[in-house]
């Protein structure tokens, strides 16, 4: 733990009384004095400020000067229609490996003369190495270290951010702009990872404390830690890399079919052409053996990561396991995600999860648990 890193907001978090924990190599706030439950509810009803500066920000510039060359290069690593991504629009995607597993999930934005990527903290070094090993001939790969990244999430986000940057009002879900905030150019997307409306804002390291302070000075905005970030994304049905998706889960198994647009599927204009394409596309045709599902525990006991799932109260062989689980403060009951064999994945199926040597019932449920609240 000698080389644990800090984001530019480290002192800001400590000054607010945050409980700091190591996460993906960074000392990060897991909760503030408000506590996980209230932070979660505040984000869903007002607005929450998250430090996500630990995540990787990467710019890809085409060496040829033609963005399409960078796009087509990136499409060799990511099974997403990036060529079809409009100017100043953003899209969710993932890097796949040769067996169709997921190396990381990320956000990709078309910024006209370059692509802007946001990748997970725990994977960023590997992602950058992966980009450098595979598409450095076509792209200049610039790792952004002089900028911090914050997320402002929740229904009051627009009214809060408008006070500092009027241009954000007209943005729709997944729009991206560059606009001045506090006299510095900010890269702003209308997106996030809570299932709520909101923004992710990349600003120079030197400006981020001032921006964070300006936002929490508003009555509607509270600082939110990683604890509530996790319960928010879980209720939102969103995958956490390393838990719900990893190198052993394929897009079809993970129920991320929606993220692979027609152009990259069998019969599309640029079908395949990414690592593991045969496996991924064959699973789209023939079905996957297991599926990521939502689970609603019958009682009040949370069903947590790693717990085995069974088809009956007595059957000895697990049909899958929980990959994320906890209490959902907004829905008011425990919520989980996990993988089950496809024959048991139908919505409404009762399965059994073994907790403390007792089999407890859970119902396969639709995701998300809380309806998405995006400004489309």
């Amino acid at each position: 733990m000698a080389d644990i890193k800090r984001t530019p907001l480290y002192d800001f978090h400590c000054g607010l009384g945050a409980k700091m924990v190591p996460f993906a190599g960074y000392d990060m706030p897991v909760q503030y004095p408000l506590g996980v439950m209230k932070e979660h509810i505040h984000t869903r009803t007002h607005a929450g400020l998250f430090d996500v500066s630990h995540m990787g920000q990467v710019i890809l510039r085409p060496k040829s000067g033609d963005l399409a060359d960078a796009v087509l290069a990136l499409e060799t690593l990511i099974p997403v229609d990036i060529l079809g991504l409009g100017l100043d629009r953003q899209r969710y995607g993932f890097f796949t490996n040769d067996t169709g597993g997921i190396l990381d999930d990320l956000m990709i934005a078309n910024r006209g003369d370059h692509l802007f990527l946001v990748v997970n903290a725990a994977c960023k070094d590997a992602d950058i190495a992966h980009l450098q090993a595979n598409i450095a001939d076509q792209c200049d790969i610039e790792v952004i270290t002089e900028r911090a990244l914050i997320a402002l999430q929740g229904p009051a986000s627009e009214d809060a951010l408008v006070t500092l940057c009027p241009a954000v009002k007209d943005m729709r879900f997944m729009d991206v702009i560059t606009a001045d905030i506090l006299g510095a150019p900010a890269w702003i997307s209308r997106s996030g990872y809570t299932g709520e409306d909101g923004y992710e804002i990349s600003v120079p390291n030197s400006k981020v404390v001032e921006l964070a302070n300006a936002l929490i000075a508003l009555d509607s905005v509270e600082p939110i830690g990683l604890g509530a970030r996790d319960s928010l994304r879980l209720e939102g049905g969103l995958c956490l890399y390393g838990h719900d998706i990893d190198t052993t889960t394929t897009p079809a198994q993970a129920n991320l079919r929606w993220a692979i647009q027609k152009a990259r599927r069998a019969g599309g204009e640029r079908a395949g052409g990414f690592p593991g394409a045969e496996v991924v596309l064959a699973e789209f045709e023939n079905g996957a053996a297991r599926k990521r599902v939502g689970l609603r525990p019958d009682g009040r006991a949370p069903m947590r990561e790693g717990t085995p799932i069974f088809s009956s109260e007595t059957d000895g062989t697990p049909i899958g396991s929980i990959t994320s689980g906890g209490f959902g403060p907004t829905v008011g009951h425990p919520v989980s995600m996990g993988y089950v064999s496809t024959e048991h994945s139908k919505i409404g199926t009762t399965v059994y999860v073994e907790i403390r040597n007792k089999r407890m019932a859970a119902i396969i449920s639709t995701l998300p648990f809380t309806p998405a609240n995006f400004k489309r």
Partner: protein
Amino acid sequence: MKFTEEHEWLVVEDDHVIVGITEHAAEALGDLVFVELPEVGITVAKGDEIVVIESVKAASDITAPLDGEIIAVNDALVENPELVNQDAMGQAWFFKLKLADPGSMDELMDEDAYKELIG
């Protein structure tokens, strides 16, 4: 009031003791979301894991502080686990224990000793 190293408090009431967890413990656990209580009438030995609690972070156990018999449990906690975060030393008691040996209370810490433990 007496205390254990497991961050439980005990208060004598008539011929039994009331047991809960300290405010310090509740704060360290974070928001509680689940409580499973023992059955009334069972006999427990010191150290037995008799209550399961889960916070937003993780599951943990509360152990029997001394030998005895469970004579009542606080069902209100099952419906409202958050009571523990709101009033750990008062309303949010977990169970009442009829001690096998009332003298065994003397083994436990007093308030000063507990305060020293948690620094």
